[in-house]
């Protein structure tokens, strides 16, 4: 602030402010005031609710409540059929697999051939792929020999076996399928490389 800033103020302007006419309250000031205080006391609660509803004070809350009610109406909480596929225990699809095995065992189908005479051959093949499958979780807890011992031949490429009520399938490829698989593998590898 430059020197002399305060000194530049004209004293007469300050004086004229001091000399301004005094503005007084009206004679009815007190009576009006006490009337207001009296009415304010009795209407304090009532006023709040009137103000709240007329000014839209509760509008966001009412909107939120409506949304929640609509959500509750739309959602059927009584239906507990929903299950988390990642949280639940593995469910056996008896409708798909059990029927097949049971039909095999109940002679509804052609009597499945026990694969005992293929045992040595199958065990050999199973053991050959075992290292590659080592990383996978095997639900059967059966040794390769036991799997093969319990297996039924369903078709040329499909063998079924059962352990503790659970059904499994062993799939063997035909020569044609193997050739096709090799061809696909080569194409995929050729494409990738």
């Amino acid at each position, binding site marked *: 602030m430059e020197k002399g800033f305060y000194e530049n103020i004209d004293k007469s*302007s300050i004086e004229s*402010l001091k000399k301004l006419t005094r503005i007084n*309250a009206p004679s009815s000031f007190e009576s009006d005031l006490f009337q207001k205080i009296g009415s304010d006391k009795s209407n304090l609660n009532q006023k709040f609710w009137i103000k709240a509803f007329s000014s839209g004070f509760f509008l966001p809350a009412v909107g939120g409540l409506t949304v929640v009610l609509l959500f509750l109406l739309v959602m059927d909480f009584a239906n507990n059929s929903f299950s988390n596929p990642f949280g639940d225990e593995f469910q056996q699809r008896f409708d798909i697999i059990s029927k097949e095995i049971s039909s095999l065992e109940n002679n509804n189908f052609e009597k499945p051939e026990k694969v005992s005479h293929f045992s040595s051959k199958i065990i050999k093949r199973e053991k050959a792929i075992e290292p590659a499958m080592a990383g996978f979780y095997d639900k059967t807890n059966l040794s390769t020999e036991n799997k093969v011992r319990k297996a039924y031949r369903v078709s040329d490429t499909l063998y079924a076996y059962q352990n503790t009520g659970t059904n499994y399938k062993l799939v063997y490829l035909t020569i044609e399928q193997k050739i096709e698989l090799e061809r696909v593998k080569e194409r995929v590898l050729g494409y990738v490389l």
Partner: protein
Amino acid sequence: MLEKDLKDYSDEELILDFQINNNVKAFEILVQRYKNPLTNYVFRFLGDYESCIDVVQETMIRVFRNKNSYKSVAKFSTWVYTIAGNLAKTELQRRKRTAFSVERSKDDENIIEVPDNRYRPDKQLENSIKEKEIQDALLKISETYREMVILRDIQELTYEEISEISGLPVGTVKSRINRGRAQLQKLLRKVYRD
């Protein structure tokens, strides 16, 4: 406590009596003491008598309702001036918003003539063109400076009291008062030349 005695009591004693004994007579005396100074202060700040009376009445209602908010460490006068000042500023803000909505309606070719009632109830001011010009100039300076100038030069409060009311250091108060005076002087140059 007799009414006769009450009139001799200081503001602080009266508000304490009202706080402790709920003595409405003490409050009435405070109203009598402050209604005119507050009316003058708020009128100079707003420039509108009707709004000014509403603000002063609201100030008194606040004092009545919130009597226990007053702490005896402060002067009653600074407390009541602070309430009135805050309410006056709120009124000014409300008025600005209204003015904005009127301004907007002008765009729709619906020009609303807002009547200027500022001097209607006060015939004394009408008689003095100079006073009117001073009041107009006062309303033109910024709110911050206006409040300080009114408290100092019209209400004649001390710098310390103004500092307490505004919650600002005395140095800032002095600086603002002088800036306000300078602005006012610039606006009133023509008046004084005449």
